[in-house]
C-alpha cells in the first residue's frame, strides 16, 4: 500500500440521525489527490462531507485539516475555511438570490474570490448568461455549474464537492474531470479534492483514492491502483462455478459461464480449474463489495 500524507484526518466520527448512524473510527483523505466518496443514496456521504466542511456541527469525534488545524480552528480561524472550498446541497445558495446576487455575495464572503475567473469559468461551463434570473429557477445542472465555478474561482487547498457529477450531462462531466485535474496540478501535490458520487463510472478516470461508504460505515478504501491489484475479476466455465463460488465476492452467471470478483490473494484456491483473470474496473470493485454487503445485511 502506498504511503501518503492526510489532508483530512478524522477520528471516531459519530453522528446519529434517527435510525441512521454514521460511524467512522478513522478517516484519511490523501493530500494531493482526488478522492471519491462512493456510496448509494443515503449511505451517509453528504452527511460526512457536511461534517468535514463544518456545515453541520452536531457530530462527535475529531477532525484534523492540513495536518495543522483541528475542527475548532476550522470554526475560529478564517484561514481554514478560506482554504476549503465546499459545494453542497440544500439551500447552498439562498433560494431568492439571482445569479448576479450570488456572484456579488461570493465576492463579499471570500477574499480570494476572483470574479474574472468566475465569469470565465461560467463561460467555460456554458452557464446561460442570465444575470437577473433566480438561481433556484435554473436547472439542476446549471446550478451545479455555478457552484463549481464559485469554488474554483477561489484560492483553496481542498475542495469538498457533493455529487458534482450527477446533475451534469456527459460533456459537462468530462469538463468537470478536466477541471479537477487542472486544480490538482495547479499546485503539484498540495491541492486535494474530495467528492462524493453514487455513480463511480462517470468519475473513474479522475479518481485516485476511493472511500466506499455503506450504511454509515467505510467498507473499503484505498488507492485505485492498489485496489485493482487487491481484487481480480475471475471468469470461468459453467462447470467450475460451484467450485469457484466460495472465493468469489459477487458472482453473475449465465448459461455459458460465470464471472465474479475475488481477492487476488485467494486466487490460489482456484488452482486446478480453468479461469481467466482480468484487472477489475473501479465500478466492478464497488459493485461487488456493495453486493456482498447487501447479502450480509440481508438486503435484496
Amino acid at each position, binding site marked *: 500500500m502506498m504511503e501518503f500524507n492526510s489532508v483530512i484526518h478524522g477520528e471516531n466520527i459519530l453522528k446519529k440521525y434517527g435510525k441512521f448512524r454514521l460511524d467512522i473510527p478513522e478517516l484519511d483523505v490523501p493530500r494531493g489527490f*482526488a478522492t471519491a466518496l462512493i456510496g448509494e443514496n443515503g449511505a451517509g456521504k453528504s452527511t460526512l462531507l457536511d461534517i468535514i466542511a463544518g456545515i453541520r456541527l452536531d457530530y462527535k469525534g475529531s477532525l484534523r485539516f492540513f495536518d495543522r488545524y483541528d475542527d475548532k480552528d476550522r470554526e475560529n480561524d478564517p484561514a481554514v475555511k478560506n482554504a476549503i472550498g465546499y459545494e453542497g446541497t440544500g439551500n447552498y445558495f439562498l433560494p431568492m438570490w439571482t445569479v448576479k446576487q450570488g456572484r456579488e455575495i461570493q465576492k463579499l464572503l471570500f477574499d480570494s474570490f476572483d470574479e474574472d475567473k468566475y465569469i470565465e469559468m461560467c463561460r467555460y461551463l456554458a452557464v446561460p448568461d442570465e444575470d437577473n434570473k433566480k438561481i433556484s429557477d435554473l436547472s439542476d445542472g446549471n446550478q451545479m455549474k455555478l457552484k463549481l465555478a464559485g469554488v474554483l474561482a477561489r484560492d483553496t487547498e481542498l475542495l469538498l464537492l457533493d455529487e458534482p457529477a450527477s446533475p451534469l450531462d456527459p460533456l459537462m462531466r468530462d469538463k468537470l474531470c478536466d477541471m479537477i*485535474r487542472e486544480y490538482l496540478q495547479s499546485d503539484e501535490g498540495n491541492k486535494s479534492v474530495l467528492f462524493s458520487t453514487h455513480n463511480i463510472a462517470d468519475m473513474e*478516470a479522475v479518481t*485516485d483514492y476511493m472511500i466506499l461508504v455503506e450504511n454509515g460505515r467505510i467498507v473499503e478504501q484505498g488507492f*485505485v491502483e492498489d485496489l485493482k491489484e487487491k481484487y481480480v475479476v475471475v471468469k470461468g466455465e459453467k462447470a467450475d462455478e460451484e467450485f469457484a463460488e466460495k472465493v468469489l465476492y459477487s458472482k453473475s452467471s449465465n448459461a455459458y459461464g460465470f464471472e465474479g470478483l475475488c481477492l487476488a490473494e485467494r486466487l490460489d484456491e482456484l488452482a486446478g480449474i480453468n479461469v481467466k483473470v*482480468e484487472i477489475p474496473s473501479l465500478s466492478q470493485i464497488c459493485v461487488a463489495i456493495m453486493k456482498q454487503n447487501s447479502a450480509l445485511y440481508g438486503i435484496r
Partner: protein
Amino acid sequence: MIISQMSGVPIYQQIADNFRTDILEGKIAEGTYLPSIRSLARDLKISVITTMKAYEILEQEGLITAVQGKGYAVNAQDGNMLREQHMRKVEEGLLQAIASARIAGLSQSELIETLKLLMTLQEE
C-alpha cells in the same frame, strides 16, 4: 503518446512503456525532467495515481529518479543496460510471435523461415 483504454494493458503500463522506449532510444536526454505527475494526468485525461504508478515503475527500473520538489529526472543510461532493455523487448516480441504461431499451427522451422524472410525483406 497514445494511450488505449481498451487494450487490456493497464494504462500505467502503457505510459511506462512509452517513456521507457523514449528514454532508451535517447529521445529524452539525460537529466531532463519528465512532466509532473499531475500535469501529465491532466494532459492524458487520466487519474493522478495512474501516472504516479507509471513513474514508480520507471523509477524501479532505474530509468528515472525522483528529485525532491522538482519531479522525476531521467538517469544516465549506460550501453549495457540499453542493450539489455532492447533484448527484453526482442524477447517480448518473439514470445508474442510464438504464441500467434501456435494458434496458426506453424511449426518451429516454418516460424524461423518466416523470420529469416522478413529480415531479408527489410534489409532490401
